[in-house]
């Protein structure tokens, strides 16, 4: 297995890097210099792994879905990230980064959140590890994800409304970065996806790579072969996707499929399908594909799922796409909703709207009976009940 690592400046091919104002340089430099050695440190790994096991509930099951397999006439497995503590894969990275922040002697954590899943995960890790926590969330998202706002507050975090720009995830990220500029010494910024300047994409990918590590082992135990034919994951920034792909990249067998949010359709003007529409540029300090106007203004995306409502993707995914190592597709809001209801009735699992995008792609594939497919079920649907109620 070849490990997917960026170069010293944080580039995957031409994507990545650290396009940030000088005010952020010292913070990033500190991280760039130290993250690898902290992550490799055996006492760090021990602490991280024991919290993932005893606190987050890992390993999460790899569930062979007889019902889906029968329906699609293939061998379909669900990686149950929805069974993690706090309800999604986000906790893997939140625990990792908060532990790292402690080793850097930081006193305070800030983070952005869209749907609130990363915010809740970060607030949870901060409660557990006793660090002060502030979460930035777009004003619009605060309104549409109320239960998660309350969860963060109960966990002791301060939730700050991002009122700039379009008041969603992209702006919450801007506000978190500005807050970090203003507090460079005692604060660590926990980015929730494989986006942002180097070393975030690599660091977050490493924390999430536990997903594919487990898939490989569990699949081997169940079938005798650890390498599936397909891995399918939804993609906003791309943290659950890279986590599910990580140990299968370049293995000569597994096709990696990332499913973006097509919104109301790629050409409807209401979409978050970055690869379908995006051009190369810079968003949040990283060179990658993003949806933008001809003169380089970032366009506000749309998706029914707040977690996929982001105009860029992580630089590693731009690289995987351009080199053909992964395939990027998209499904619409409606297709995701249908897939969510389908799984709920078929298997008794209500998935998050984000994860429903990965499931929806099954309907578009030409599968063979022997094909082994792993869907990364990145989160559970509790947070989406208000949306589901409207469409059921």
């Amino acid at each position, binding site marked *: 297995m070849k490990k997917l690592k960026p170069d010293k400046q944080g580039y995957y091919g031409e994507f990545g890097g650290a*396009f940030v104002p000088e*005010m952020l340089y010292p913070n990033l430099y500190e991280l760039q210099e130290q993250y690898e050695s902290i992550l490799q440190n055996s006492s760090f790994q021990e602490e991280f792994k024991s919290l993932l096991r005893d606190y987050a509930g890992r390993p999460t099951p790899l569930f062979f879905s007889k019902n889906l397999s029968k329906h699609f006439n293939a061998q379909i497995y669900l990686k149950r990230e929805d069974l993690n503590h706090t309800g999604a894969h986000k906790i893997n990275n939140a625990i990792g980064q908060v532990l790292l922040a402690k080793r850097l002697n930081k006193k305070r954590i800030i983070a952005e959140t869209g749907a609130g899943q990363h915010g809740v995960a970060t607030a949870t890790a901060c409660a557990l590890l006793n660090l002060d926590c502030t979460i930035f969330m777009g004003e619009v998202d605060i309104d549409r994800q109320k239960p998660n706002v309350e969860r963060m507050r109960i966990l002791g975090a301060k939730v700050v409304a991002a009122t700039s*720009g379009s008041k969603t995830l992209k702006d919450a990220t801007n506000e978190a970065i500005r807050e970090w500029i*203003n507090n460079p010494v005692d604060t660590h910024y926990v980015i929730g996806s494989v986006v942002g300047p180097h070393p975030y994409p690599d660091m977050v990918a490493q924390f999430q790579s536990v997903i594919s590590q487990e898939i490989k082992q569990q699949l081997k135990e169940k079938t005798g072969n650890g390498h599936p034919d397909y891995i399918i994951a939804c993609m906003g920034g791309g943290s659950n996707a890279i986590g599910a792909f990580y140990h299968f990249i370049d293995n000569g067998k597994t096709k990696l499929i990332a499913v973006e949010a097509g919104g109301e359709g790629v050409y409807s003007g209401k979409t978050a399908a970055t690869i379908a529409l995006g051009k190369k540029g810079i*968003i949040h300090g990283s060179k990658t594909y993003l949806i*933008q106007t001809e003169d*380089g203004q*970032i366009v506000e995306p749309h998706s029914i799922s707040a977690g996929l409502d982001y105009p860029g993707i992580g630089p590693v995914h731009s690289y995987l796409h351009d080199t053909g190592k992964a395939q990027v597709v998209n499904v619409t809001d409606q297709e995701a909703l249908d897939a969510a209801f389908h799984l709920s009735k078929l298997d008794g699992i209500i998935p998050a709207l984000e994860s429903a995008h990965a499931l929806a792609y099954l309907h578009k594939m030409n599968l063979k009976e022997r094909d082994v497919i792993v869907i990364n079920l990145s989160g559970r649907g509790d947070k989406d009940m208000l949306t589901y109620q409207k469409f059921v």
Partner: protein
Amino acid sequence: MNRIESLFKKKQNGILSIYFTAGFPQLNDTLSVIRNLEESGVDMLEIGFPFSDPLADGPVIQHSSFKAIENGMTLTLLFEQLKDARQHTQMPLVLMGYMNPVLQYGEKNFIKKCKEVGIDGVILPDMPLDYFERELNSVFLENDILNIMLITPETSEKRIKYIDQLSKGFVYMVSSNSITGGKNNMDLQTNYFSRINNMRLKNPTLTGFGIRDHQTYKTACQYSNGAIIGTAFIQHIAEHGVEKNSIQSFIKKLRK
């Protein structure tokens, strides 16, 4: 000689540079703002081209950027507006903005176009140093456009020296580790200012971020060759418009 270098040759103290967002408050205000600032005795101008996600800016410049984009400002249009600027002013002109609009315009085209309309320098706060050195330094040199870079209180001595070596024109000394429009107390930064002073950089320095009135302007001038004012000026024209009298009285109050 580049107009920025000429300015610092002839004047070492109390230089005043004003930043404003092109296309704000009205789309076609650019040339009137330039003219009225020149007639108010300003030494240099930084013309901001707007970006939808200005990471290093506080609410005032964020707002002027959004408004400018809404008004229809683009880099292409700004260059069109600046086409005749050199018939009106011989002041040094600097373009300032984020990398993404420049990437879409084409980095090399951007620098060439700067040269063509008579721009003297460029500030791209989110352009990494190593990227500049590797990809763009030679294009800047060929076109005699100066790349102006920022240092902050947290920038290490080693890095300041590296930035000074790579810089031409002046070094932009950010007064405190903050986004633009901060209300920090300049007196608390005097240690940092003296530290930079004692390093005897090859370039002159201008202090910016948080300079907003006569007092802060004076402090900045005491420790560097002058000051850059953005947020306070934008707030002024947002409230009082871009008329000559109003701009003149703003500048006069600053300098006293």
